[in-house]
């Protein structure tokens, strides 16, 4: 079963490169350009992983995580937060919001897929 990943990031180039890497790895990919846009995808369709940027206009990655964790159907899906900060403080914030893990930018496809392996197969 091919897994479906939702990417939420306000940078188109990041979305594109993520999509490229993920599709090549055999995943199906959905794209959202900010938190609010991402929420629209949580309408019952299968989403096996949310990959969200930390800083986004409208609804940021942490606020999005909190919201997703409130939707029954998606309560327990893995969520990875993309961030440039590797400080414990930010990571703790992400974990407290309910994120499964995080991924620090910049990353290459190997790092991305290795991190993904921790939360999705």
């Amino acid at each position, binding site marked *: 079963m091919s897994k479906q990943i939702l990417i939420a990031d306000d940078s188109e180039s*990041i979305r594109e490169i993520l999509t490229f890497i993920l599709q*090549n790895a055999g995943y199906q990919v959905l794209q959202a350009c900010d938190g609010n846009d991402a929420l629209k995808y949580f309408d019952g369709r299968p989403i096996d992983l949310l990959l969200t940027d930390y800083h986004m206009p409208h609804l940021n990655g942490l606020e999005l995580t909190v919201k997703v964790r409130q939707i029954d*159907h998606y309560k327990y899906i893995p969520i990875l937060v993309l961030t440039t900060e590797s400080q414990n403080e930010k990571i703790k914030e992400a974990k407290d919001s309910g994120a499964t*893990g*995080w991924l620090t930018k910049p*990353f290459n496809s190997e790092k991305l897929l290795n991190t993904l392996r*921790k939360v999705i*197969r």
Partner: protein
Amino acid sequence: MISFVEKFKDEVGEYFERLESGLLLLEHDPDNQKVIDEIFRIMHSLKGSGGMFGFDLISEVTHDLESLYDLFRSKTQKVDSEVITFTLNSIDSLKKLMVQEPTSDHRIMAEQMIAETQQQIARITNSKYIPGSHILLLPNSSDQPAANQTTYFISFVPGENILINGTNPLYLVDELNALGECNIQVSFDNLPHLSQIDPLKCYVSWTLFIATVENIETLHDVFIFVADNAQVQIEKVSSENVISNENVLAGFLNAKFNNEHWIPNEADVLVSEKNGKKLELDEKAEAELLLKSSADSINKTFFAQTSVDSIRVDSRKIDQYMNLVSELITTQSRMELISSRHKFPELEQLTETFEKLIIQLRDNAFYMSLIPIQSVSVRFKRLIHDLSKLLDKEVELVTEGMETEVDKNIIEKLMEPLLHIIRNSMDHGIENRTIRLAKQKEPVGKITIKALLIGSYVQIEIEDDGAGLDRDRIYEKALSSGILSDQDKMSDEEIYQLIFESGFSTSTLLTDVSGRGVGLDVVRKRIQEMRGSIKISTEKDRFTRFTVNLPLSLSIIDGLLTTIGESYFVIPSSVIRKIYTVKHELLIKDFRKEVELDGFQLPYINLHEVFESEKQVPEDQFVVVVSYGIQLFGLVVDEVLREYQAVIKPLGSMLKGQDVFSGASILGTGQLALVIDTKKLIQKYS
């Protein structure tokens, strides 16, 4: 990669513009929090993505600029005109630093910018600037990994609530398994009585030994996401691979159990003591071997040069091989059936091993029958070459991903439809030079063929940069030919798909090339016969793109074995999302044919009804949730038996008239199970 970099550059250009206009706004309204937030976010994005696209200096420089604006964001400090002027100047410098291969001049410029930014931060926070506190990182020289394996002991006790945030601890254990040779023990000690089990809690823990070349940090990294929600203990057992030495492992566990201190070197002593005699012998033997093998290696290098790394095999032999593997799978499932009936542990174990080997054999056989699309691309080229002469159109062919490998049977069946699409693009899509010039397009048209692997599907895109489809003309044509009535509400997207309907051709002129009876409806039919799909997207005067999706193999799929009435049915795993149980009476009550699952309304089809089974419907039925395009659909079956590897046998030409079943599979009992094409089924019965 190029296209991403180009996109990124465009995006950065846009960022710079937004930064500039934002800064100019700030000049008059320095407290505008929205603008400050945006500047911070842009700096943040530049920092993060700069490095990803190879613009390392951008990343380095914006790191401190981001910190600077973080100060204003938290409202502790105020923006002043000096900061604004400084930032504007920085943007000019950033533009110059948008290079992937910086020269030393670039580096100096970057260092200077960083120093200046830090001075700004120091000035604003009234602290002292310490020069050189930021040093540009030099690219790391890659460390040589130690070739020696070390054995570690790992205890992983996940917290009860670890599942809540989407963590699957099994993946972590599996990740360790990929890092080296493992000896894994699962502990169910904390598992409560069945009646007290909370399915949302994790009661399982793991202890394992791993022999790996990785260092202890890498092992700790595996658990990085669960550090706060699990007890992870990693200890060195020995500085060599002792994974198969049970004495050492037991010794370690014993020491641990008795709270004794374990010194890894002791283990090594233990190893060498135990194997002392053997070691000496081995050394002698090794020396002899070394002498002998030098002669061997000369032979080997010689043969290595003359040997070939691929051989040609008659495709009929491959077919035969595939058939035998299919037979083997069928036989194996019969064996599994017998084994499960007799409950004979040794046989069961053997059957399991057998199954694993067969799956490997299947995959191996499967990859053998794949050939790259490249092998037929010359036919595309030839066709385009011939047609461009015939139609007097200049066309350039661009191919991507031609190395993608597909089952040769699929390629053979796919050729005709693909060639037809190309014909169509050449004939109706690409304009001639005069028209293209009038439209201010490149005088030479372009057809792009892209192949891409997506999971167990291969996607082939054929795109031309021609005239695109005329939505209105298709719509009118559909109305006049009765395919549509004017009450039908359709999106543009849906209207374009109408060209696949039979009896549909908008071309007013019948040309020699693609207007001869065989239409796109035949193309779609052929592709659907291979359990594939085709879609079209287009934009007027810009492009028309056909996207074909096909399964990688026609003959073997992973599926779920279910029963409906007395018969067996297989649903392909690739479309299954979830399985629920549901009371049959709930389904009867609902006349809208929707069922509520996990708080969502899901349309469903009760296969017991539509297949007109005469057997009594069981009280509890199963809803197999399958994806249908982007939607979800429930297929209600009587019973879900197990996962099942189905060797699909064609139903034969007598049953061509139906398309709900893509084939049948022979079960271990010799009985047949029909394989459901969920898409066709839903189309037909919903």
